[in-house]
């Protein structure tokens, strides 16, 4: 009797291959549904971190426009003005695509650098959009969030890699 579990040579279902990354990013965005009543932006944008992890781990997985529906979903969940993550995440994906044409060799540290820049761009951009639509606050308000989001990226990337192994092995 062969035990159930990951094994080489099997064919994972198409649904699992396509849907696992999408579902994980959406679950990451849905973390704001946790019963935390925050008094400042404390929760890292887990949806964004997962999107970056999947994108940097599997460049062939998604076209750049995938950030549009995922960003829209994140806007619905996060409380940011609608369109904020749609715009910022898509711009980030396009920028990563173009940076890959320049970078010939890429390793772990460069991935982290790219993700760090993307996180800083998206969080401060989100703050700017929130200010435009009636909110307030300075960059000092989101600085802690930026810091631990950047620090959290390697962990999230690791979990993505682990999930990815499960995803492609039937």
């Amino acid at each position, binding site marked *: 009797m062969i035990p159930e579990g990951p094994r080489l040579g099997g064919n994972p279902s198409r649904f699992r291959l396509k849907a696992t990354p999408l579902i994980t990013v959406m679950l990451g965005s849905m973390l704001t549904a946790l019963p935390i*009543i925050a008094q400042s932006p404390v929760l890292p944008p887990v949806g964004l971190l997962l999107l970056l992890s999947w994108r940097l781990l599997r460049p062939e997985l998604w076209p750049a426009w995938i950030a549009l529906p995922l960003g829209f979903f994140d806007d619905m969940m996060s409380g940011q*003005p609608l369109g904020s993550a749609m715009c910022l995440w898509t711009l980030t994906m*396009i920028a990563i695509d173009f940076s890959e044409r320049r970078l*010939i060799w890429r390793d772990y540290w460069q991935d982290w650098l790219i993700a760090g820049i993307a996180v800083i761009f998206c969080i401060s951009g989100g703050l700017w959009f929130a200010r435009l639509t009636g909110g307030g606050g300075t960059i000092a308000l989101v600085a802690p969030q930026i810091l631990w989001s950047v620090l959290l990226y390697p962990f999230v990337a690791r979990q993505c890699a682990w999930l990815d192994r499960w995803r492609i092995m039937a």
Partner: protein
Amino acid sequence: MARPPSRRPGYDRKAQYGLFAGYVVAVSGAAVGLLLIVVAMFDPTGFAAIRSTAGEITRPISATMRQLVSGVGTVDEQIVAYFRAGSQNVGLRRQVDANRTRLIEAAAIEQENLRLKKLLKLVEDEDGEVVAARLISSSSSSSRRMARLNAGKSQGAYAGMPVRAPEGLIGRIQTAGPNTAEVLLLTDSQSIVPVRRAKDNIAAICTGLDDGSLEIRSLNAGNNPFKPGDIMVTSGTGGLYRPNIPVAIIVRVEGDKSIAAPLANPARVEAVIVQRPFEATVTRPAAPAPADEAAPAAPVAP
């Protein structure tokens, strides 16, 4: 690791066009996102339907988890209280004794107040309570300060209604869905509450600072009359918020503004109460009678 060659379609025309179309979609989508932001600049609650749909979807999850973890927000306090139990016990005992006499005094004053109000023929208006519900989640990854309420239009909670806890003011409802509502918390910089100092009637404006604290500005410019420890309550000016709801305690004075901490912490309150918007004019139904007397008297005066 060398860069994966995935983004190069090579000589395949179809793949080249596909890649190009993908970028066109992405760029135009980003532009649409910007456009939505511009729309939101002029109409911040414009996409309320979409937001409340998300709220409705996540409501069962959030509400269930909220019931499971209602104590999590106060874990740190409970640990500290455990370590300081002895000295705290003595301190609290003394405080209880002091409070008991104050309570008796307050009861007497309340009686007197009631009698005086009857003399003035003021009718106490009803409390205006609509529904009691829980805050189930919040915009914890955004720089806006909103919370989601586990009650909506079907429970009678509509946009614009003030929300309070027993400890003090929480905020007001910004958008309401069928079963959930978005509450603009007191600490959001869009929230502006007219307040007054509890012990005298010095009026001020209370604005959120987005980081959990509030900014109190006195209405009479020039000097800042407030000191740390002053309690601010709603003044009822301009309607919406009922008068005498506790709002904040001043912790620091910075030039002509004061920094205050809200008295009700939304993370800690068990349940909140949605109230009807307050209208200052309904408190005096007997007003027309004196007005009739005053009208003939007016021409005599000059």
